Structures are given as C-alpha cells and as structure tokens.
C-alpha cells in the first residue's frame, strides 16, 4: 500500500498528490510514468510523473478527473493509501545537449511539462514555456513555470488570463521572429499536440510529443498502447511515451483513444450516482 502524504486541489478538476513510494522516487525522471490502482478492484491507470522528492521518498502526480477511476482517486485524502503504485515506466525525456527549448503544455498536460521544463532549466538550457488553458479558473502551476522558464507565455481560450488564443499562436510568432529552438517539447491533449507539430513542421523545428494512450500493464505485455510512428507499430509504454512528433499518426491515436468511450461514460455516471448518494 502506498500512502498519500500530501494532497492539494489545483483547480476544480485537477488534483495534486505526493505518494510515498521510495523505490519509484529514487528512479523516476522527467517524462516517465507510473501505473496505479486506487483500490482492490481498481483499474490500472497510467499517470506521467509530475515530480519526485527522493529524500522524502515521494512521487508527485497531478491528474484531472476524467473518469470513474480518477474520480475515485480524487476522493482519496491525505493519509489514506493507494492499493498499487508501480514505476517508473517508459523512457525519460532526453535533456542532454539541448541549449534552447520551447516547452508547450496544454491543460493538465502542463503538470507533466513542468518537470521537463525544470530538468532542462537545471541542466542549464534556456527554456521558453508556453502554457495554455481553457480559462483562468483552470490555470495551474504558474509560479512553478515562472521559476524555471526564461520566458513564460500563458494563453487562455477565453482570454480571461494572459493572452487570448491557442498555444500555437505565440509558438509560431517566436519561430518566425527568429528564435532558434533545438527542440520543441509538447505535452497536452492529442489535438493540441497535433497542431503544435503542424506549426513546427514547416520550419523543421524538431518536436517531441508525449503520448498517453490506453494501457493495462505498462511493461510491453499487452500492446494496447500501440501507436503508429514513422509507419511502424510501437508501444508507448516501452518505446515512449515521448516520440518524434513529425512521425506520429495523430488521427489514429485520437481514434484509438475513444475505444472505451461508452464504457467510460457509464462508469462515470455510476460513480457520480454513487457520490451523490454519499453526499445525501
């Protein structure tokens, strides 16, 4: 069992937790993920690591409540335990040798983009961060990004904070203004990453995307997380989760991500009804 040492609610749907898992905390690097189960009959869900504190033995996760499992997770409190917590899985972000990088995060993806930005910053790389949210109420991690970014641009869809618009607007402006990025690293919704790639590709700026497909075991055994990258079938869990954005078949990934939409909807409804009963 793995204890929840700290819990904070970052916005109405995003929760941060520090989980006591010393072995994982010792090893996990930016870009890697863990798999957890909330309780005895829980499903296994992958979450990308949002930070570690090896001295304390904790691993930070930041997640959005999008389904029954993340709902159940969000309802756990400080001091309570998670049934299972395993990792780190997947490959770490390549940091070495990078001098100037633009990190582009969208929504809760910013939670995963942050440790990447921090790792780059710590390695002496110049970091430009662009983070986007639907609106001000959903904004997370502004101070943390400020601390590790040489330049920070915040975008909101509705203009309630920062600049109004999507993340690709300032990205394109920067590239056109002559910023020479060694790499763009983007983490967020599939559709956003697809458009980031569409923005950088014409300029030939190498772009890395972080994929988060459906998984079961996370060790290469089930093949459920397969993607087509460069015309080849790869497994996100062992070959990724980060890939060359120019080569990823996003349309296929987006289609596959809806495989269990029906099941998820029912499970979510059931979970909400249960919660309503608890509240009543």
């Amino acid at each position, binding site marked *: 069992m793995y204890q929840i040492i700290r819990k904070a609610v970052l916005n109405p749907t995003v929760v941060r937790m520090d989980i006591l898992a010393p072995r994982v905390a010792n*090893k996990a690097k930016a870009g890697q993920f863990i798999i957890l189960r909330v309780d005895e009959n829980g499903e296994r869900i992958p979450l990308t690591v949002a930070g570690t504190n090896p001295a304390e033995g904790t691993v930070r996760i930041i997640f959005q409540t999008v389904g029954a499992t993340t709902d159940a997770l969000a309802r756990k409190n400080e001091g309570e335990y998670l*049934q*299972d917590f395993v990792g780190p899985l997947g490959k770490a972000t390549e940091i070495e040798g990078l001098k100037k990088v633009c990190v582009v995060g969208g929504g809760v993806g910013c939670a995963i983009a942050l440790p990447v930005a921090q790792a780059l910053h710590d390695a002496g790389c110049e970091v430009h961060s662009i983070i986007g949210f639907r609106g001000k109420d959903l904004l997370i991690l502004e101070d943390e990004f400020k601390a590790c970014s040489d330049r920070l641009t915040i975008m909101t869809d509705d203009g309630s904070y920062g600049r109004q618009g999507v993340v690709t607007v300032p990205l394109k402006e920067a590239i056109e203004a002559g910023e020479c990025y060694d790499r763009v690293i983007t983490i967020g919704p599939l559709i956003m990453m697809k458009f980031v790639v569409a923005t950088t590709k014409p300029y030939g700026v190498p772009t890395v995307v972080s994929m988060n497909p459906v998984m*079961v075991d996370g*060790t*290469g*055994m*089930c093949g459920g997380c397969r993607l087509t990258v460069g015309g080849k079938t790869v497994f996100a869990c062992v070959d990724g989760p980060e890939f060359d954005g120019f080569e990823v078949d996003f349309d296929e990934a987006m289609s*596959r991500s809806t495989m269990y939409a029906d099941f998820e909807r029912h499970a979510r409804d059931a979970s909400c009804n249960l919660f309503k009963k608890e509240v009543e």
Partner: protein
Amino acid sequence: MAKPNMSPVKNPMPTQDPAVRAHNFDEVALGYTEAQALDEATRCLNCKNAPCVTGCPVNIHIPAFIEKVREGDFEAAYQIIRKSSSLPAVCGRVCPQEKQCESKCVRGIKGEPVGIGRLERFVADWHNTFSTEHPVLPEKNGHRVAIVGSGPAGLTCAGALAARGYEVTVYEALHVAGGVLMYGIPEFRLPKHIVQKEVDGLRAMGVTIETNVVIGKTVTVDELFEEGFEAVFVGSGAGLPKFMGIPGESLKGVYSANEFLTRSNLMKAYREDATTPILRARRVAVVGGGNVAMDAARTALRLGAEEVSIIYRRSMEELPARKEEVEHAEEEGIIFRLLNNPVEILGYHNPDDRRDPKNGFVTGIKCQKMMLGEPDERGRRSPVAVPDSEWVLDVDCVIMSIGTSPNPLIKSTTEGLDVNSRGGIIVEEDTGLTSREGVYAGGDAVTGAATVILAMGAGKTAAEAIDAYLQSK
C-alpha cells in the same frame, strides 16, 4: 499388489455441460471424485523403470504417488508430488500430459494411458481442501537469492531454493503474483484462487513476494546484487505480443491475445462490477491456433459473443493447441476456419461524418485461403496462398494470437547479459546460467512462448545450479 484394473480407457473427466459452460467462467473440468481417483489409480502397473517419470519435465515420481492414491493416503501422495513440483494443482490442470508423462505410459500402448494429470489434480485439490499439514520450515542458510517474475519459472525456482534454506525474494511487475497463471490462463481453465493457494503455500515456506517492482526499471539486476543478493534468477516471461503487420491492426476492436486475456483474467473485466473495460463483441475472429488462441476464443464466447472463429493458416492436424482444448472449444461452438490467412482488417469509415462514433471500429477481416505445400526441413507442411481466394468474414473484434517475444526490459538494463536474435536470454542448458556470473534465467524469457511445465522445469534446474554455485562459493 492387487490385480490391476485393465480397463482400456481412463475414467472420463467430469465436465460442465458445453451449452452451460459457454456462458460462465466457472471451471470446465470438475475433477475426479474420490471413487474415480481410486479406480483410475488401479490402472497404473507400477512399472519398475517408470517411463512416465522420464516424460515429466520436473521428474515427479509418478508411480509412487499413484500407489499412495491407491492406498487412499492422499496426503502422502501429495507430499511425493510436492517434492518435485511447487505447483501441483496448477500442473494437474494445464500440463500437456498427453505429450509428456502420459505419452510414455505403458498402458497407452494398448488403449489409453493412466490419467496421470487427472490424478495429480485430484491429489492437489484434496490437499488444498482437507490438509491441515503445515510445511516444515528448513533452517535458513543465510544466503539471499532474488527471483525476477512470479510466473511458473520464478515460483518453482523460489520454492526449490526456499526448501533448501535460502532467503528468497520474488519481484513481480504486476500487482498480483502468478504471472501468466494470473493474467494469461482463464479462470475456466485455471481458477485464480487455486493459483493464489499455491502462491500462499510458497509464502508459508518463507518466500517473500514483492509486487509492483519492475526489475530493469524500479530496480536493476546490478542493484539487486548491491542490495546483498548473491544470485538472481530471471523468469520474466515472454511479454511482447506480435502483430501480423497487415493493414487495419490499429483499428478499435483489434486486441493482442495478451491484452484481451489480461483485461478479462487479471483485471476481471468479465464481471459486471469491473472497472476495467473490455469490448463486448458480437462476432469475434481469433487469429492463431495455439493454446492462447483457444483461451481467447473461449473467453470471447463467455463474454457474450454470438459467433467466435479461429482463423488458422494450416489444417487441424498442424494446430499447435492441446487436443483437449481444441475439443472443448469445438464442443462449445467455436468455429474453426482453417487454411485461412488474414490479409487485412476492415474498419468502419463514414466519409460524410467524421464524428460518427462507429468510425474506426472493426467491421470485418479479409482472409486468403491457403493450401498446404511440401513439408519443410522440419517436416511441417508450409501453407501456400490460393490465388484469387480472398473473402471477408464480418466481425467486430479481432484478437491476434500469433505469439510473443521475450520482454527486453531486463536485457536493456543489464550489462553483459547476452540474448539471441529472437531476444531470448542465452543460457547453459543444464544450469540456466547466463553470460553474467550469478545470473540465471529460465522459462519463456529464454525459450520464447512455451508451456507452464517447461518453465517450471527450467526454474527447478536453475535452483539446483544456484544452490551448487552458492555452496561452492
């Protein structure tokens, strides 16, 4: 000894009615009654040279245990099996006895061999139900051994070493111990409580099992030595599922058998209260002809499919699955579409509505008819495509069951560990020793996908070699 029972046939195994069992996940084979076991035991001739024992990868002293069954001393029979096998209740169910012990049985020359597997299962189940014996813990010898993977190879190696006084820790990547016995083989063939009973037995012998540790990721093999382990056994299994490389394999509704079975077996997706989703398909095609393909097909049927087909490119004769499994599948109504090879999986695409929820889901599988050509050097007739023979089978789910390759996680993080071209760890055959001192390996991680009992044999061999190595150090 009383006159042997010369009945030419085995006592038949009682089974659930096919029409009933096709809709439930309860065990298909119900096991011998005491009377049936006693009767079957009298069919054994107690041959002096015991050819059956040579057919057993872990050399269970078969005539001796059957003699105890005949005497009605089932606990003594169990203890004889237990000396050679860590997992009797498992082996009694999933071993291909017809190719092993029973294939060597003298009674098999004129009639059916003794039902050795069925007797083993009876004895193990009797023990698990009635025995109150507690294992005698051996004196600890102070040496620590780490086992990677808690499947049949790892559990066997752990059991054999614990019995010799070693302090054994088994590391398992998943959240529950048992490996393929938990995630791969379905409940209706191997109930999970039986696997857990065997695992509990190992714990009672002092074996520590740590779940949620991925060796190669959470901890490396080198770090295990730094932590004070003196030898490591790698039994990490054959993880990575293969796909055919045909168009349409990324459509929604295409599974690897590993994923499909893991969702159903390990994650209990077949239960109504499951939190893990699985597609409840109407028409299912399973590609492949091994035991795993049979398991996947029969699972799909139990999940409510109306029609389940096995698509296999050779004929019934070449089908690699156990005969008993094929018969069970046929009885349950699985359709065998033999001499067919898939060339494409077809999907739904609505050109007028990109948001149509049916988009991207499987609608059919295009197959090419095959015929058998000349036998190859191994005597196996290879399939040849029949020109212009393509046809489409309407399905909404395709399960690829065409094999797996060894998991590269450990290899890629362990320096000096040599693997062959297929990714299998290279070992000395009679010891399981790898290219690294103190590191042993066995099971599917070495051979690629094989059977439970072969993995157990490899685990046992390695345990003996590890014992010899550490005693001589």
